[in-house]
């Protein structure tokens, strides 16, 4: 799982995702697909992986709702897939770095998630998975429009690459707005995770390509590499400009935050995300000896539905806040004793 691994540029880049949209000739898309045909697709796709070492099949439709939502919270599947009615399946590799959603919006969504800033690694992983399918399945493609997808916005490469960045200094400096405009002109988008510019946003942003037709996979990746590299450098520069006094304040806030995380018996989700942002920045600035990936793991495992899935009997928000505090304590305790 990506959030247990140290990644490139981890002080700023949280994770990288690349997904390919693929469809099969001869079958209608979602909405026009009968249950029988849907099951046929799932069977055909799984038959490619069945017997290959390391691949696991999950009948996603049969999972409880909270578990499906937990997959979405951790970015393993799309929110739409978590809510989808009718047959659908999830196929994953042994390292849990590649996931194939069968019968999401497209017949196939092949997705790779890696830690940190690693577009090359994620592209390689999805490409390898795709190669297993190519040849075995009749993939819908036209020379003119490239890979044919349910929605015309994905035509061409069918590839969406995105990197999640932690940009507290950029946010604090009020730079997100102009970034948004600049990226728009480049055919890229930035998406904030919560109320932009507020303390609760967590400073987390996802940057991805928007255009998929008439641009190659390599061109898309190198454009993102270049632009995100610049954003990371800028964030680092801004972090380097934090005054001594501000650093003192931040350090105090980070340590108080650690105190809350280590000893509080209930932690709300909004509270945790603001603690996460402060402490992650503190860890990246070496104000405390804590690996950033530990904090990312903490955040992922503290998502509401993930808490409910991993802890039996947790139903009310109060239960959840208690369970969350326990998870935080456990993860941080483990990291501290490892030092």
């Amino acid at each position, binding site marked *: 799982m990506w959030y247990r691994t140290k990644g490139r540029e981890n002080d700023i880049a949280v994770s990288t995702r690349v997904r390919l949209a693929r469809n099969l000739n001869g079958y209608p*898309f979602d909405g026009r697909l009968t249950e029988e045909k849907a099951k046929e697709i799932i069977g055909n796709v799984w038959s490619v992986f069945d017997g290959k070492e390391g691949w696991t099949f999950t009948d996603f439709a049969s999972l409880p709702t909270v578990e499906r939502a937990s997959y979405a919270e951790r970015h393993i599947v799309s929110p739409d897939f978590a809510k989808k009615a009718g047959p659908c399946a999830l196929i994953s590799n042994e390292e849990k770095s590649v996931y194939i959603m069968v019968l999401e919006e497209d017949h196939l969504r092949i997705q790779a998630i890696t830690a940190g800033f690693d577009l090359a690694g994620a592209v390689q992983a999805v490409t390898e998975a795709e190669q297993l399918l190519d040849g075995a399945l009749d993939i819908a493609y036209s020379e003119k429009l490239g890979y044919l997808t349910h*929605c015309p916005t*994905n035509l061409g490469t069918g590839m969406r690459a995105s990197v999640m960045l932690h940009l507290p200094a950029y946010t604090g400096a009020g730079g997100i707005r102009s970034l948004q405009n600049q990226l728009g002109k480049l055919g890229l*988008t930035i998406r904030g995770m919560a109320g932009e510019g507020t303390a609760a946003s967590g400073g987390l942003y996802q940057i991805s390509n928007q255009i998929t*037709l008439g641009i190659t996979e390599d061109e898309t990746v190198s454009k993102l590499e270049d632009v995100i590299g610049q954003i990371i450098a800028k964030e680092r520069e801004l972090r380097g400009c934090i005054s001594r006094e501000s650093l003192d304040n931040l350090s105090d806030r980070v340590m108080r935050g650690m105190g809350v995380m280590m000893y509080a018996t209930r932690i709300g*989700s909004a509270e945790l995300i603001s603690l996460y942002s402060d402490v992650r920045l503190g860890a990246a600035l070496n104000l405390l000896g804590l690996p950033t990936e530990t904090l990312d793991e903490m955040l992922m495992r503290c998502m509401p539905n993930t808490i409910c899935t991993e802890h039996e009997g947790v139903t009310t928000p109060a239960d959840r806040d208690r369970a969350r505090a326990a998870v935080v304590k456990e993860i941080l305790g483990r990291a501290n004793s490892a030092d």
Partner: protein
Amino acid sequence: MLCERCKKKEATFYYHENVNGNEKTYSLCSDCADELEKKGEFKKFGGFASELGPFESLFAGDPFEHMEALLSKQDLFGSLFAPTKTRQLAERIRAKKCPLCGMTLSDFAREGKAGCPTCYETFADELEPTIGRIHGRTAHSGRAPLKFREKNEMKNRIRVLEAEQKEAIRVENYERAAEIRDELRSLRGNA
């Protein structure tokens, strides 16, 4: 960030549009977003303000997916039935049906998405302007499935050479430009 319309309240909705490759992003507060939605100028999509708390909403929605739906549903299809088309032609287009999934063009316009991969072949001409508006281009460049690969590689090689040729001419390296011209000629001869 403040709402771009009233410049008073915090912006919580984002609207992104792409017209002929011109991209614009608007940030609006929930009141302005509501108002514009009522007027039909804007369709809200799960952005930063949801009924959930900020943390829950963090990964709860994928605005990208909503945006895709938004982009395709916006009046991108307006041109399909432009008045310049004769009524007869328009009738014929309306009657066209995808042989595989039964989709008609008006289904496509309403749903904003294809009914099956064959739809793109069925409605190739009618969809071209729409696709051009979404992506700013209308032809694929990039990878291809195994059965198209050899042909595709040649196509990509030609594309690279054409760009190189342009550059060679720009820097007045006519010797190189001539070499490329010959290579292109032989490649096209084989194609």
